[in-house]
């Protein structure tokens, strides 16, 4: 295919992209504004001092980023397996980008959770089962990035990192689902039994959709950036003068 001049075709594509992006920003902004200002207050979140349950409105950010982080880690595990099957560098870039973003969303979930925990439960950190799970996940995927840094050869790095990423897919169910049940009680409400009013649940789901879309958008950008970096790096090194 020859070099294309900037035709209507391309302008159309980028306009669609821009429109989608604006829609995404508006969506997240709407969820935030409605959630923070107008949503009904959740019952049972009166706080230790018996304040009004205003703090519960952080749920529209806290739960969506936590779910986005979980989805990012699962996506990274899946692309790791695909790399091991196909050995195409794009899967390696994709799992690396997903883990970086999973860590970012995971840290946001942890921090917002800690702030909320201070208001609700009186301490930033309680080693609540869900707090334990997310910290373990953060340590696991932080180790993944350390592993990458410690291997020089790109092929070896991609292969071994993919194996560790795939192992994460196997270990994750224990971290996220089995370990939390080990504890006799959890401060976190169980998702199924939580008595959430349907507008609250709806807003949480809308927020989750927004954060996951945000993840997908940044992930796509990061993958393209990594591909550019790799292409620049793959040029044969010039001889020293």
């Amino acid at each position, binding site marked *: 295919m020859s070099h294309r001049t900037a035709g209507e075709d391309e302008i159309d594509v980028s306009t669609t992209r821009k429109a989608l992006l604006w829609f995404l920003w508006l969506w997240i902004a709407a969820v935030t504004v409605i959630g923070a200002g107008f949503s009904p207050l959740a019952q049972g979140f009166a706080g230790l001092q018996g304040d009004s349950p205003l703090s519960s409105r952080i749920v529209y950010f806290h739960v969506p980023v936590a779910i986005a982080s979980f989805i990012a880690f699962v996506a990274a595990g899946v692309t790791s397996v695909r790399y091991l099957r196909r*050995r195409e560098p794009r899967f390696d870039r994709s799992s690396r980008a997903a883990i970086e973003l999973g860590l970012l969303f995971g840290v946001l979930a942890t921090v917002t959770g800690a702030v909320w925990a201070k208001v609700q439960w009186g301490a930033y950190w309680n080693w609540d089962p869900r707090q334990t799970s997310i910290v373990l996940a953060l340590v696991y995927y932080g180790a993944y990035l350390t592993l990458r840094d410690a291997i*020089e050869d*790109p*092929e070896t790095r991609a292969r071994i990192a993919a194996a560790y990423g795939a192992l994460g897919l196997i270990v994750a169910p224990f971290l996220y689902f089995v370990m939390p049940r080990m504890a006799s009680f959890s401060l976190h409400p169980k998702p199924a039994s939580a008595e959430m009013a349907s507008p609250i649940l709806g807003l949480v789901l809308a927020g989750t959709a927004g954060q996951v879309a945000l993840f997908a958008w940044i992930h796509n950008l990061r993958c393209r950036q990594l591909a550019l970096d790799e292409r620049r790096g793959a040029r*044969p*090194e010039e001889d020293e003068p």
Partner: protein
Amino acid sequence: MDPTLPQTSLAFDRLTRGYGRLMVVREASGAVAAGQVLLITGTNGSGKSTLLRCLAGLMAPQAGTIACTVAGRRLDVAARRRAIGYVAPDLGLYPELTCIENLTFFGRLRGLPPARGAALLDRLGLPPKRLAGALSSGMLQRLRWAWALLHRPPILLLDEPLQNLDAPGRRDVLELFEQHLERGLAVVASPDSLELPRVASRLELGR
């Protein structure tokens, strides 16, 4: 059986492999059949060892293909590894085991009788009960040869195969090498041209 079809052959096409930004082997191609030797020459750092490691399946090439046929059967990379005898300066054997223990261990992995290792050690003048870690560099090179020939591989990949060998050592390994060529093929890498029998093709690496 069609005599024009080679029963055993190794061919590689436009192999490319680098380390990070540095491209070491660039689009190297070659082919060799049973009874023949492919001699690869080139200066230090021209990618001879890297090319051999790719052929051995010890390193994945970034681009290019390797086709390996043994006794009329196409081998995948896992089968190719097991069909190869490999001598290289960075090939280590267990220093805490004796010569015969080293060969017996690898013989067991390959399902060979222990007598095979003893015979090779005798043929190459190696003391069976000496620890591999206590061998001189020339003796270690002989042990590498014994390791490579242990399973009578159809394919020999030799990286600077004569280094550190004295005159009798060279004579011994070259005799074994000629015996090998009656059945199999070999790819030999060396900085300068070697006096080898049955060199059918040459490949000069580097600029």
